C-alpha cells in the first residue's frame, strides 16, 4: 500500500486541519467561518479557497445567513465528508501499520 490510497483532497495539511476540526463537533453541528479561521490560523482568502474545494466534493456544506446587517457564514462536515475522513484515517493506519 502506498500514499495513493490517501484521499488527495484531504491529504493536504490545511484541509486535513479543517476536516479534523469540523469532525470534532457532533454530527449536524455547524461552525462559524470566523471561529474556524481563528482555530486554523488562516487568512480569510486562503480559508475560502480550501473550503470551496471541500464543498465541491460535498465534504462540507456552508450556509450564509444575515443577522441584521452582519452576514454570517457557517460550515459543517457532511455525512460524506465524515465518511471520507474515516476512510482517510483507516488508510493512514493501514499505511503506517505496514511500514
Amino acid at each position, binding site marked *: 500500500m502506498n500514499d495513493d490510497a490517501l484521499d488527495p483532497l484531504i491529504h*493536504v495539511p490545511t484541509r486535513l486541519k479543517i476536516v479534523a476540526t469540523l469532525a470534532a463537533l*457532533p454530527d449536524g453541528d455547524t461552525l462559524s467561518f470566523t471561529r474556524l479561521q481563528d482555530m486554523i490560523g488562516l487568512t480569510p482568502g486562503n480559508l475560502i479557497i480550501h473550503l470551496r474545494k471541500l464543498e465541491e466534493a460535498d465534504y462540507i456544506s456552508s450556509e450564509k445567513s444575515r443577522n441584521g446587517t452582519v452576514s454570517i457564514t457557517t460550515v459543517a462536515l457532511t455525512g460524506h465528508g465524515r465518511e471520507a475522513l474515516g476512510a482517510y484515517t483507516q488508510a*493512514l493506519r493501514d499505511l503506517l501499520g505496514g511500514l
Partner: protein
Amino acid sequence: MNHTPGTAGDGGTFGPEQAAALLDQTTQQARRKFQPSPPWLLATRAVMVLAALVAIWLSVRGQHPYRGPTAADIPVLVAFIVVNFAATVAVRRRATAGVSGRSRFSQGEIIVLVLAFAAALVVMAVLGAAGVSFAWYPTSVLVIPGLAWAAIAAARANWLSFGTGLALVVLGVVGAFAGPAGSWAVAAVGLCAVLLGEAAAIAWQQRA
C-alpha cells in the same frame, strides 16, 4: 516510503507520519477547545466543592441539636456558587462560540433545568413543612435536577452526562440516610468524586 506532495499552496512534502501526527494533534486540540466542561474546570470545581462543604460539615457536626450552617458558613457557600456559576458560563460561552446545533443547550433544555431547581426547592419546602427530616439536607436538592440532567442527557444520547445525572440522584438518596450533619460530608465527598470521575472520563475521551 512514498510521499504525496502538498497541494493548494502548502508546498513541500506531506508524508503519512506527518499526516497522522497532524490529524491526532488537530483532533485533540479541537476537542479541547469545543469542550464546554473541560477536565481542569471539573477538577477545580471538585476541589472547591470539597473544601467548601467539608468546612460546613466541620462546623455542623458537633451541633446538638442540629441548627444548620452558621452565619460564617453562608458566605463561603454563596461565594462558591457564584464563582462556580460564573466560571461555568464563561468557559461554556468560549467553547461554544460560533458553534450552532446540538452542542448548545436549547431554550427548552435550559427551561427544564431552571424549573428542575425551582421544583426541588418547592418540594423541599413542602417536605420541610410536613416535618420530613431530610427535607433541607444539602443532598436533597440534587435529586430533581439530577433526574432532569439525566433525562436531557439521555435525549442527547450523552451517556457520560446521563451517568453524572444518575450519580447526583444516588447522592441525594444516600444523603437522606446520613443525618443532617452527615449529609454535608456525603455531599462533599460525593460531589467531589462525581466531578473528578467526569473530569477523568472527559480527559480519556479527548485522548481516545
